[in-house]
């Protein structure tokens, strides 16, 4: 098997341990991300692990790519410490407020600038937005096939065989390369950054590209390039519909059984 060049798209998300302290900006209805520290989106760790493991096995390069504010250099350094070879941060004030499509446009432009890889890896979804859209949108923009919610990936001569989670089970797909693959958490167990990895990451550094470097216009990125606009955010009222049955126990039991049968909950 020849060496593989893999680009991993990574998103910093608010640290789930501190979600209790997360607030929404009442004006934009967006998360106030600056309030709490960020971590690598957990499923993106699975994507990084898969890329680094393939790199160790077949050789090639692992490039970590992120569209995020400047502070994301910490998460990119962590991804490098896990074994990435280089890191590219797409950061520009005009990228703020991007929805999944504007984000995918940015990432696709970044991938084109880096050069067509053999595979693009993503987490299946981000812990904060949970749309599962960015990976497939990147694939569409790059005109590549995509495999989503992958729980096992085997690289074979000429392509990959992926086990993908679907609503009612799993499907096994064969796919030619290049391709975009998004990973679920069962795919692997992500490694921790080692101290020597941290030393190496420190020496490698992070490359930063702006909208101008990517050749993207203001209308294509950020809030301006986002067809999705948040109109409202609310917590749906969750309640249980309670019904009290009254009478002697045998009557209540009979009545309960009748209702359960009517709802087809028992035979």
């Amino acid at each position, binding site marked *: 098997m020849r060496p593989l060049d893999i680009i991993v798209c990574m998103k910093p998300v608010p640290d789930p341990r501190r979600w209790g302290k997360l*607030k929404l900006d009442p004006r934009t209805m967006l998360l*106030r991300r*600056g*309030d709490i520290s960020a*971590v690598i989106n957990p499923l993106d760790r699975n994507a990084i692990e898969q890329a680094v493991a393939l790199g160790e096995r077949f050789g090639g390069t692992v490039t970590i790519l992120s569209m995020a504010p400047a*502070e994301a*250099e*910490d998460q990119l*350094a*962590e991804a490098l*410490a896990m074994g990435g070879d280089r890191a590219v941060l797409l950061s520009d004030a005009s990228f703020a407020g991007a929805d999944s499509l504007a984000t995918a446009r940015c990432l696709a432009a970044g991938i084109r600038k880096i050069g067509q890889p053999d595979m693009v890896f993503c987490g299946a979804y981000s812990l904060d937005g949970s749309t599962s859209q960015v990976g497939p949108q990147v694939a569409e923009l790059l005109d590549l096939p995509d495999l989503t919610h992958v729980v096992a990936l085997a690289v074979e001569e000429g392509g990959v065989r992926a086990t993908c989670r679907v609503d009612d089970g799993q499907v096994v797909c064969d796919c030619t390369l290049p391709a975009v693959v998004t990973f679920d958490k069962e795919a692997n167990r992500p490694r*921790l*950054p*080692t*101290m*020597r*990895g*941290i*030393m190496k*990451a*420190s020496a490698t550094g992070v490359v930063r590209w702006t909208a101008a470097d990517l050749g993207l216009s203001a209308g294509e990125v950020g809030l301006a390039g986002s067809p999705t606009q948040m109109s409202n955010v609310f917590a749906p009222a969750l309640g249980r519909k309670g019904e009290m049955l009254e009478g002697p126990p045998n009557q209540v039991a009979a009545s309960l059984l009748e209702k359960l049968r009517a709802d087809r909950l028992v035979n």
Partner: protein
Amino acid sequence: MLDILFRRRRRVYNEPSLAAPPARLPAVPVVVSRPVAPRPSEVSMDFDLPKDARLVKRSVREFAEQVVAPLVQEMEQSDEFPAALIRQLGALGVLGLVTPAEYGGSNLGYLARMVAVEEISRVSGAVGVALQVHHMGASAIGDFGNEAQKAKYLPALCRGDSLGTCAITEPTGGSDLLGMTSTARTVSEGYVLNGRKCFITNSHLSDAVVTVAKTGEGPKGLSAFILEKGMAGFGAGRHEHKMGLRGSDTGELIFRDCHVPRSALLGNEGDGMTIALKTISEVGRAGMAATALGILQACYDEAVRFARERTLYGRPIAQLQAIQWNVADIYAQLQASRWLCYHAAWLKDVGRDCGVEATLAKTYVTEAAVQAARKAVEIHGGCGAMMEYPVQRLFRDAMVCVSAGGTSEIGKIVVSRAALA
């Protein structure tokens, strides 16, 4: 708690004019965010950990929670160090934090090492102290060893083939260095060592031991050696059982007509006092401070968790002032301890003298950990005395830290000399 008080105060002081204070404080609690702001150029102090240390903290914390935490209960029961953990610590790279890259380390420095020992100790003080004493051995060889010694010992110590250690203390005492009785007699092919070291961390697990024995009289009469398990006449003796830090390996090392070649000498003959003092004060005491800091952080975490969960009089006890005051005390000691520790480590990293600051940190933080552990136990009420709650372990662990690496009284002597100079 204190944090909230300070935030409110800052709001008042930040008003444009103190002469015209705001009519009233906001009726509803104000959400004070801490956005990452660029540092104003006129501010010269930076209290953020550097990026490398932040990454170390995150990675080691995850390791401690995933790998070390499941071992803690067994270590408490058996009082044995889980030998398989040494390789795992080696694979993570924390054994080589203060060892140069060419010998297999990462050389991320003493602040990174402080943070790593703190995070491990937050979960297990016993593993924390094993790690920090390992660094004493590794740093003594790294700082004072010749090329051959570094190439021979450091890569194995970084990999975790065994833990390192530094064996100084004798039955005559640890702080009275000149009172030691172990001897190293010069013979044609090298030295013959006789004597006994006690209360040595990693005594039975360590394959390469840095130790000190008398080659003459007076401060220049001490010399340091690297001994290997398997040398004839050298081995571990009694295994100690401690009230706390259970599971960390503590015991005797005995030399009985142990013949060592001249190549086992660390530094020059007569350098033993310098090597011992520098290693104990700058590495060992900073490491004990880091161990106690981790324990103190755990005391805070457990106290806050219990105060929020336990209800009394129909509300969480965190709403009772008696509990709030105790939590505020623990938090204040935690903050003070952390800055003392990080400052001492920073001094070491920038190459300045840090013996006094590391001793100050060790003395203060170990005492603070005991006080905080006692308060954490008290916050737990009757539960605090129960073995299934971790605070009793934290209390016992903190007590052991006080005398390790020099008692508080010795620490105060060192600090007072600097304070009165």
